């Protein structure tokens, strides 16, 4: 009885904190829109408020471990959160798509979803997370992560110009890649607190892929671009139909973009974090992936800005394999981790479990993955 009372008391406290933080965030947003607060201050207050609100949601999710009523409440919060976010996305579309139209937006969306579908099918046998996690991640990538990236990147672009090499080719790529990893970091932080149930590294890769996809769809819509082609780049376009193809100093350049970049870093970091005990040099994979993505992102932005020395540009093209490096590493990494985790979960071809994850199967996989990641036998 005492436990029940204290549990209700904790719930009430969490509800009060969450309600207060949401109210303050909405108030700051309204004040920013009406000009009563400078936009920067308004954004900082909103950022603080939503951070507290998400921390409360995290605590509540943890507290719902074995309480049906709390799990039910969390389900309701999930439905409401996803619905509000989806409405926000729809409300933003007219503004976002005014330069290239809804058709281009939908073409780009289809191209991103194609790659996501391929990655999801490949990760199917070792996946443990459900659609809600990925839907929330995509919406976060589209709305919040882009907002945060613009918040830290836009002032420099406005002050130094869109052709400034430091702003476009150093500051923006580094900050964008960092903020895109926030959802990945949250999932990994939650995973490390458990030893009885863990996600697969490919789950985390999908979280990164969804974040990158959301980010890319927003960016492409705002910049008025988007394409879908299965033939532009041999083989690569079959997996990443949004791949762009250009030339720099007469050399071809392939451009895969945010989805591939974030998925690759997420996969490598997840592998190092989750299997660091088992494979001591797994951190090398993270270093290589982060280096490859930053080199590709920075060098391609520098070329687009038109301010890069020809020798340096060609050197980066050699190092990045003409833009193939990130996508090649992602394909190779996914294949390796897939084989690795397939053995851990005792993989077998079961189409029903492959495409439609059942709770019991997710539990079985996550328990086996947890044991392997904790250093136990696979």
């Amino acid at each position, binding site marked *: 009885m005492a*436990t029940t009372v204290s549990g209700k008391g904790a719930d009430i406290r969490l509800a009060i904190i969450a309600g207060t933080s949401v109210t303050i965030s909405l108030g700051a947003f309204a004040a920013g829109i009406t000009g009563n607060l400078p936009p920067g201050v308004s954004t900082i207050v909103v950022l603080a408020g939503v951070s507290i609100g998400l921390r409360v949601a995290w605590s509540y999710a*943890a507290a719902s471990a074995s309480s049906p*009523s709390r799990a039910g409440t969390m389900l309701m919060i999930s439905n409401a959160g996803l619905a509000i976010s989806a409405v*926000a996305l729809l409300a933003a579309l007219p503004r976002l798509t005014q330069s290239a139209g809804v058709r281009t937006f939908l073409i780009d969306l289809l191209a991103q979803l194609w790659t996501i579908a391929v990655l999801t099918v490949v990760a199917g046998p070792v996946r443990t997370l459900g659609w809600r996690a990925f839907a929330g991640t995509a919406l976060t990538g589209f709305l919040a992560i882009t907002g945060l990236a*613009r918040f830290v990147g836009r002032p420099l672009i406005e002050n130094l110009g869109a052709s400034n090499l430091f702003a476009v080719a150093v500051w*923006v790529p580094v900050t964008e890649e960092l903020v895109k990893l926030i959802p990945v970091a949250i999932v990994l932080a939650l995973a490390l607190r458990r030893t009885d149930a863990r996600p697969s590294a490919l789950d985390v890769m999908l979280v990164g892929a969804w974040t990158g996809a959301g980010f890319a769809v927003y960016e492409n819509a705002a910049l008025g671009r988007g394409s879908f082609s299965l033939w532009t780049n041999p083989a690569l376009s079959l997996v990443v139909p949004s791949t762009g193809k250009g030339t720099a100093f007469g050399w071809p350049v392939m451009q895969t973009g945010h989805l591939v970049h974030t998925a690759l870093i997420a996969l490598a970091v997840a592998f190092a974090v989750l299997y660091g005990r088992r494979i001591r040099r797994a951190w090398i994979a993270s270093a290589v992936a982060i280096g490859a993505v930053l080199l590709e992102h920075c060098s391609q932005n520098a070329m687009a800005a038109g301010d890069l020395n020809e020798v340096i540009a060609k050197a980066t093209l050699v190092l990045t394999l003409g833009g193939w490096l990130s996508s090649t590493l992602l394909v190779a990494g996914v294949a390796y981790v897939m084989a690795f985790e397939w053995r851990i979960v005792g993989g077998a071809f079961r189409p029903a479990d492959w495409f439609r994850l059942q709770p019991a199967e997710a539990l079985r996989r996550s328990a086996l993955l947890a044991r392997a990641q904790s250093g136990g036998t696979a």
Partner: protein
Amino acid sequence: MIEIVLGILHWCASCAPDANSIPPAAGLLGGAAGAAGGLAGLGGLGGGAGAGTGLSPATPGASGDAGPPSSADGTGGGPGDSASPGGGASSGDGQSPAPSDGPKTITTPDGMVTTLDPNGSTTVVQNLPPADGGPFTTGPGATDPNDPQQGQQPIGFTHQILGPTSPSDPTTSLSDMPNTAHLQGTPDPAQAAPSPPASTTGPATPHTTGTSSHHPD
């Protein structure tokens, strides 16, 4: 420059004009709502919230697949948050103990119980009475919807009535059988009704640190 660089895209969300972009504060608000929605889908990672979101066969009307159900047997442990009731054996730093070698029982809010063998195979899936409004409302089989151990089988309880004894003979009242209640003297129909055991050997209750104990309310 046109002849030197053709068709190279730059990956820069900050370069989009303000007129074509969402104000960062609005994006943060909308995205945070999505993030909160996604937290529930993290299943066992978030402490099991996803267990209530899934496609359990015993959950008609649920849509979508789900994360792994949560451990409710006290062996899994929540993230060690102060508000977490999930970890009977959680340590203060939020780390749960290493998985035990024995079978693990996991209960979802819909009452589905899954027993996981040490080799990873799921061996038992059965439905217990619903968590809320189940048939056991009193007595040793009662379930409390807010009890983190609810959904598990009630702890074994046997009721043994001994024959007439002499109150002055202490040897007649001795029994060290666990989970056994004993009555002495002549059976009394009023006393023969089951009563809660004074002590149990069940799994740890919330707010304990791994020791088996029972705190009657």
